[in-house]
């Protein structure tokens, strides 16, 4: 007989309202995608917290590592020109 198992982990993303992104809320254990969606519904939307659910097998997610933080994210710190507040627009100019 094989090992006892609590089933694979699926990460759960819930969209709270139309038009906003799905947000990670936690995970559930399930044997297949249909079950993962049902379990996510029962666990994470008991108080009408959502209108749409995504589930992803946890082992299918690749993440950047904390050591990458410097090389990945700091370079953009000195590119303020990517942000609209970098630009001074004279008062009175509209729709910009």
């Amino acid at each position, binding site marked *: 007989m094989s090992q006892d198992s609590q089933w694979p982990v699926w990460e759960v993303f819930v969209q709270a309202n139309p038009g906003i992104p799905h947000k990670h809320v936690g*995970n559930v254990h399930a*044997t297949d995608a249909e*079950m993962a969606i049902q379990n996510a519904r029962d666990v994470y939307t008991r108080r009408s917290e959502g209108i749409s659910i995504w589930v992803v097998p946890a082992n299918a997610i690749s*993440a950047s590592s904390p050591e990458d933080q410097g090389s990945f994210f700091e370079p953009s710190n000195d590119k303020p020109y990517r942000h609209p507040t970098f630009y001074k627009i004279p008062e009175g100019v509209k729709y910009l």
Partner: protein
Amino acid sequence: MEDQKQIEAFEAKIASGVKIEPKDWMPEAYRKQLIRMMSQHAHSEIVGMLPEGNWITRAPSLRRKAILLAKVQDEAGHGLYLYSATETLGIDRTELLEQLHTGKAKYSSIFNYPTLTWADIGAIGWLVDGAAIMNQTALARGSYGPYSRAMVRICKEESFHNRQGYEIMMHLAQGTPEQKAMAQDALNRWWWPAIMMLGPSDDQSPNSDQLMRWKVKMESNDAIRQRFIDRTVPQADFIGLSLPDKDLKFDETTGHYTHGPINWDEFFEVIKGNGPCNAKRLKARSDADKKGRWVRDAALAYAEKKKLKAA
């Protein structure tokens, strides 16, 4: 040997209020302590389903039945959030449950007391969830990201638990003399265990300093206990029930209640496994696990077959 520099950076991060995330470097002692605490907490939620679950089928009105079902379901949800959060530390749920079933892991002492009457359901929601909330709102400020986020979610759900319990007690206290007696009896039996569930006195809990610095523990047990007592005593007064502590009185100078001596011998006996329901609770959990084995296997086998078919 852990690099002193790493530890310093880690502690600086915590001091500045940044959360530690699963992939971040952390001292082994931090990881171990968190696994111990978080899994204990998770186990407490699911073992905690049992004493209350005991009364679902006997709830005296349809409204109470629905509320209790929803409440106990929340506790299952809390267990799930907490196991999830614990798993981020590199241990899986199968192993965590094995630790519970073999008695290696602990859970809150409070759930080893029996629920003897319907009023116990009121007392649990009011006192046990009330005490838990005190503890959990503190833990929500803790340093480990997944634990703290789980706590935030849990705290949001807990206040309904606390209120429904108090509401049950209020109805009983204002009901027939038999109902009032039942409420008082439940309060007499649950008061001290609720006080004790917040953990041993500060002088009896070792290595608190480091845990506080690491924001694993946020407040001392005694401080949390004091706040719980200060808030709960007036609630009991309000519904005309009396607390089973003849030494309990309000100290005008400190603004706090002082209480009589706590029977720590009883607490440590229950922790050791000698509470009235330790054996029963553990058996219920491990029986459910054993009885569920073929179901879990079948679901896995079916998923495998479907995958093969699709391939």
